[in-house]
């Protein structure tokens, strides 16, 4: 089994393509959903974490993404042979809702005593807290961007989707993806290295 280090997408054991799985999903195959979950759970988990800065919220959001994929299975499409852009598109909306709920939960939790961590888990707990702090700081830096601009940045820059794939994820034209990213980059006033794999559509789009 091969795993992409950037996206943690697990390459399939079988010849079963995403297109075949999505077709099976349209026909109501629960096995197809499970296979998509096995293939993309880590990628969706990481994506949800990057949108919420919370591992526990990311876990719940990931579950919701795949449940929503099942509920809306007739609408699922692939882009460039991959179902991942559609999953990310659903994740955007799920994370937006999850973030609103988690703000309420965080306020409630802050009134409770802090749990005592087991020594065995102290390091991993510390690592998770570190990455949550780092991610919260990144999201704070992006706070000046509109939500659609943040979506495009997360899809194209962090997740290395092509402009076409990002357009599929967001349900907007490719030109809109290009203009949102250009606007985001101007607002950030920093150099953002868009991955070369994002395709020819972006070659003349550097600002």
């Amino acid at each position, binding site marked *: 089994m091969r795993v992409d*280090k*950037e*996206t*943690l997408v697990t390459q399939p054991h079988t010849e079963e393509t995403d297109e075949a799985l999505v077709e099976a999903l349209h026909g*109501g195959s*629960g096995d197809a*959903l*499970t296979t998509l*979950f096995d293939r993309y*759970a*880590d*990628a969706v*988990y*990481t994506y949800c*974490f*990057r949108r919420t800065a919370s*591992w526990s919220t990311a*876990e719940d959001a*990931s*579950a919701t993404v*795949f*449940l*929503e994929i*099942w*509920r*809306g*299975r007739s*609408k699922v499409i692939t882009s460039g042979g991959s179902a991942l852009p559609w999953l990310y*598109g*659903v994740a955007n*909306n*799920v994370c937006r*809702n999850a973030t609103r709920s988690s703000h309420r939960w965080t306020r409630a939790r802050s009134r409770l005593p802090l749990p005592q961590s087991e020594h065995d888990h102290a390091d991993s707990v510390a690592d998770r807290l570190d*990455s949550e702090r*780092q*991610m919260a*700081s*990144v999201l704070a*830096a*992006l706070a000046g961007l509109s939500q659609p601009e943040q979506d495009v*940045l997360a899809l194209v*820059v*962090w997740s290395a989707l092509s402009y076409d794939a990002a357009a599929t994820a967001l*349900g907007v034209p490719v030109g809109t993806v290009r203009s949102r990213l250009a606007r985001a980059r101007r607002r*950030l006033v*920093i*150099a*953002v*290295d868009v991955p070369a794999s994002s395709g020819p559509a972006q070659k003349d789009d550097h600002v």
Partner: protein
Amino acid sequence: MSDPRITPPPPERMPPASKDRIRVELRAATHSSQGGGTPTRTR
């Protein structure tokens, strides 16, 4: 990405126990009905 201010932490795997829990949820959803529950607006 070059600017650390907008560089997220590296990707991580979902804990195996969490994956198992979600697989159970997915199996329940796919076996129970045509999706079940009240759909939320996601697309």
